[in-house]
């Protein structure tokens, strides 16, 4: 049988140790002085989606081709896309409207996973509170488009992997195109050769 009150005393010792320890031990002093001291977010951290563009011009470098896969897969349906069309009404491979309603978005990253063009990625910015639900929480294309350099800044590993993949794809495509061109050239050359030296039988 314990001496009555010993359990309570033990508890006080613990709290006292935590209080005094906070002056010497870093581990016990946990508070982050938030507005002055920003947390160092881990690389994987995510908040809301954004669109990546290559180069300098957001419109020209836009990777999105308005395939609408993300719109379809988005679980809470917060993405809204309208494809662009040229003057003749022919659909173009880019969105005219690309909206993400971050007042609905659940930051699940499924849009990122399903995007076949490496276009939509997760941002890390979380300071987006606003006085107006409809005005500033529906992000349109101009707010969503961010440069590849920015992407490299927030997710360096992932961004370089993505770049390598795109590069490999491009090379593959180039190689395929080159092979195709080569084949086409050969075929024409053969045809030309055939035309130049028609086989005997046809004479």
């Amino acid at each position: 049988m314990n001496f009555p009150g010993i359990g309570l005393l033990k508890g006080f010792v613990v709290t006292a140790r935590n209080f005094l320890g906070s002056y010497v031990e870093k581990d016990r002093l946990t508070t982050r002085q938030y507005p002055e001291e920003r947390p160092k977010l881990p690389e994987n951290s995510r908040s809301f989606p954004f669109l990546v563009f290559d180069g300098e011009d957001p419109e020209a470098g836009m990777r999105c081709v308005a395939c609408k896969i993300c719109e379809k897969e988005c679980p809470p349906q917060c993405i809204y896309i309208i494809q662009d069309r040229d003057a003749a009404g022919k659909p173009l491979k880019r969105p005219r409207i690309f909206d993400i309603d971050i007042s609905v978005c659940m930051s699940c990253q499924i849009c990122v996973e399903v995007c076949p063009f490496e276009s939509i990625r997760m941002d890390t910015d979380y300071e987006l509170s606003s006085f107006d639900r409809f005005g500033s929480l529906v992000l349109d294309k101009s707010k969503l488009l961010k440069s590849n350099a920015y992407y490299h800044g927030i997710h360096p590993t992932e961004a370089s992997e993505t770049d390598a993949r795109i590069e490999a794809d491009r090379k593959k495509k180039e190689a395929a195109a080159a092979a195709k061109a080569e084949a086409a050239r050969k075929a024409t050359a053969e045809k030309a050769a055939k035309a130049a030296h028609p086989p005997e039988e046809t004479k």
Partner: protein
Amino acid sequence: MTEILEAIQSAFPSADVGILTNPSPCAQHSLLVAGKDALDVAKFLRDGLGYDFCSNVSGVDWPPKKVREVVVRKETVDGVESEVKETIEREVPGYLEVVYHLFSIAKRLGPVILRLRTGNRSDEVSLPSLTPVWKSADFQEREIYDLYGIHFEGHPDLRRLLMWEEFTDYPMRKDYVAPDDYEYEPTPHDEILAKVGPPKEVA
């Protein structure tokens, strides 16, 4: 599963019990029991076979549907017997179903799946409650009553569990239509788009 069926049949020769096979790779087959025998079978499962833990009770809605079946018919035309394939469209009446997942804690067996079906989806919706056998079915049967509208006879306290008392619909049924209050969504989607009228460029 067949042993359990045999045990039940030997205990209750008149009981209307059958096995429903499950085509999925996990092969969790289930026992389909008629409502009138359910209480007896349940008691036997608990006391006779040791399935003392009713883990999960779920409701399932099967609305009436049209099934296309290919029927092979033998036909005798002019003394020659031939097989004629015919597609028949058959209306399968809808019903509601309650699925009980049973485990045995002592023998570490399970799951045994017990299914009960109602006659239809409108007036013959009562089934015997298994709450007297397994207390754990209490809230879950109330939930099913709330969301599917199955009336459990013999339930000690059958009230709506999740929705308010004044609510009259059964929202988990497949034909439930949710109240239409999306009209102010900032990013329009499918039905809302249809209501607002398609944007002009979507031809």
